[in-house]
């Protein structure tokens, strides 16, 4: 959810087309993935647990967003995109090493595996945008 908030901030603040387009892609994809995750949670009648990993990710994202809110122009663009690269790396690491191996439901595992591919794509996309900002 925090990634969507960061995207909304970028759509609002950035004047760089590449950055705004990227943020719109993030907003759209993350909303779609979140919706699938919530649908599955409902279907499986499980309660999403707040664990140490998700807490750490949420805390880092909140701090990052507070920092971003204070920046403008090129400084904002660079910080937002660098943060997106770092954030997706972190999420992908958590998916690969922790969340996917510990998923014991086939549907959940498949959703997480697809999520990993999507976020690996976002990481590469963010790296590409970062390259255009230099």
């Amino acid at each position, binding site marked *: 959810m925090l990634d969507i908030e960061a995207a909304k901030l970028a759509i609002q603040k950035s004047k760089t087309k590449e950055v705004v387009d990227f943020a719109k892609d993030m907003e*759209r*994809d993350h909303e779609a993935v979140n*919706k699938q995750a919530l649908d599955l949670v409902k279907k499986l009648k499980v309660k999403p647990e707040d664990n140490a990993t998700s807490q750490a990710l949420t805390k880092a994202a909140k701090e990052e967003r507070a920092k971003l809110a204070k920046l403008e122009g090129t400084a904002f663009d660079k910080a937002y995109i660098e943060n997106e690269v770092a954030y997706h790396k972190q999420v992908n690491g958590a998916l690969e090493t922790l969340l996917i191996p510990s998923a014991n439901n086939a549907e959940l595992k498949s959703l997480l*595996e*697809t999520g990993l*591919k999507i976020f690996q*794509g*976002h990481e590469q*996309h963010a790296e590409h945008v970062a390259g255009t900002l230099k």
Partner: protein
Amino acid sequence: MRAGALSVLGSLTLALVAPPALAATIEVTIDRLVYSPASVEAKVGDTIEWVNKDVIAHTATVKGGWEVMIPPKSKGRITLKQAGAVDYFCRFHPNMKGHLNVAP
């Protein structure tokens, strides 16, 4: 002789109006961020149709060339105009890669 000439003329006419090899539509499925088949053999005039089974949008993008948008749970298509081999990828998820071999 007359009948022979006519039948020769007839078959010649048929040969001249016979349509060239029909253009085909080749389907490429996108499922969980994978183009399948990843590599396609086609010819100029054929249409490639991407069928997106995912809930997120993808593209088929040729660097410095064309781009097809493929919305979620939807289709995108392009008719091939140029011969040659091209690599394409998804602009939103550059880890998705495909290839087209287009014969003249």
